[in-house]
C-alpha cells in the first residue's frame, strides 16, 4: 500500500459522495433534464466501480461498502 494510492482511494470516495449529492439535487429540483439525471446515474456507477478497484488501497476498508 502506498501513500498515493491511499490518497486516490480517498479522492474516489469523495467523487462517489459528490455523485450522490448530484443525484439528491437532481431528484429534489424541478429540473427537466432526464439526460442530466442519466449522466449522474452513470457517473455514480462509475465512481462505485472506481472505488472497488481501489479498495485494496483503502486503509479504512470503506470502499467495499458501495452498494
Amino acid at each position: 500500500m502506498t501513500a498515493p494510492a491511499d490518497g486516490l482511494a480517498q479522492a474516489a470516495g469523495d467523487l462517489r459522495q459528490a455523485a450522490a449529492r448530484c443525484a439528491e439535487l437532481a431528484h429534489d429540483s424541478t429540473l427537466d433534464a432526464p439526460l442530466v439525471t442519466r449522466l449522474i446515474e452513470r457517473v455514480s456507477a462509475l465512481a462505485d466501480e472506481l472505488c472497488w478497484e481501489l479498495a485494496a488501497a483503502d486503509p479504512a476498508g470503506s470502499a467495499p461498502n458501495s452498494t
Partner: protein
Amino acid sequence: VTLSTRANSLWETASRERVTALVDARLLQVLARAYVEVPFYRWFYGQAGVDPRRFRSSDDVRRDLPFVTKADLLAFQDSPEWERLDQREVRQFHLTSGTSGAGREVHLRDQRDLAAFGTGGGYSFVWAGLRPGDRILLTIPYTQTMAGPYFQAACEAAGVVPVNGFTLDSETRIDALGRYGCAAVSITPSHLHRLTVLAQQQGIEPARDLPRFKAVIMSGESYGVGWARSMEAYWGARLHEGWGATQTLGVAMATCARGAVVDGPGGPARGTLHGLDHRCVIEVLDGDEPAPPGGVGEIVITTLRISAMPCLRFRMGDRVRRRAGACPCGATFSTYVAASIGRIDDMMKVRGMNVWPAAVDAAIFESTAVADYRGRLLTDDEGREQMELAVELRPGIASPDELQAALRAAVKARVGITPTVRIVTPGGLAEPILAGTDTFKARRWTDQRLGQTVASA
C-alpha cells in the same frame, strides 16, 4: 512482453491475507443485500429456509449456503414472482444461449452492472499486452446474449479500439486484420485454426503483413499445447485465454502476461489462468468438497460486483484444474491451468455452438431405421470444424441415400449444424466406450480437433 504487465497492481499484488479479508467482508455484504433486494434470492432462500444475514464468516457461507443452478433461475422465471418484478432500474438484459434445450436464463443489468461490465475483460486485455489505442478484431457474434456488448465494454474499459468483425466472413476478417492495423483478435480456438489455414493459403506472412499484431485472445473452447505453439509461431503473437460467462458478467479468469502456453522443463506447457478474486469468488468443487491444489473440479462462482442479478454459489457446469502453486508472474490471484476448462456434463462446443449429444441422439433415433451411431469431431484440411456421424442401420433397411439426407436435416434442425453422415451396415460399429467403471453411459463421441484426441459424451 514483460512480466511486470499489470492491469491493477493494487489488487494483483496485494497480500492474500488482505484480499481474503476484503473479499470475505464484501461477500457477507453481497449476500445480505441480495436476500433483501434481489427478488430471486428472496424467493430462492425463502424456499430453502435460509437467511444469509445470519452468516458471520466465509466458512459459514461455504458450509451452509445452498448452491444455485440454471434450473433454479429458470424456475423463478416461470414463477408469478418474475411477472411482478420491478424493472425500472434495468438498463440491459442478457440471455444465455439456450442451446441445451432447457431454456434461456434472463440476466437483468442495472447501471452499476454496466459500469462494472467491461472491467474483467479489461484485465484480460491489459494482461495480453494491449494498450489504449490498440485495435482488436472482434469475431464473437453480437446477439441478445451477453458476448457482443461485453466485448465492447471490455474494449472501453481497456481503451482498446474495437474492430467489429461479427458479420464478416473469414476472408474479410483476415483482410480487416491488416486493413485496420489490428494488434489482436478475440476468437475461439477453432475459428483461429480456420483463419490460419486461410491466411496461409493466401500467402500472408504476419511478420511482414501484420506488423502490429501481438496477441490472440481465445475463449469458449479448449486446445492443445502443441497446436497453441504452432499458432504463435505462425502469427508471431502470444496466445491468451479468458474464461467467463453471462453469470459472471464477463471474464472471471484470464491468462497473465506469460500467456496460454509457456516454456516448461520438458517443452511447451500450459500457462496460468488467474482468477479475478476481488470481483468473483471462485470455488472449485469435486462433488461438494473443495478440489485440492492440482485437482479438477466444477467451477462454482459467487459474484461480488454484480448488482441487479448477482450469482451466488452458482454451479457453472464447467470444470477446471487448479494449479498447484503460485505463478512466476508474481500476481497473488488464485491460479488455474490454462486450456483445462471444459464441461462437466457432456456438452460439446462445435463451431462456437453448444451441442449436447442428447440432442443429436434425439435427432438420430427418431428414425426407426437406425440401430446406433458414433460421432466424431474433426478439423478438416481447410481448418473447418466438422461433425461426422457413422450410422448403423437395422437389418433389412433400404434407401440409405434418402436416410442420409433425412438424418442430416434432422440433426441440423436440432442442433444447428449439418453433419456428414456415413451409413454403416448392421454390426459395423465398434462397441461404445464406457464412461467409467461406475457407469454404463455409452460414449459415442470422439473429439479429434486441434490436436486433441479425447473420447467424450
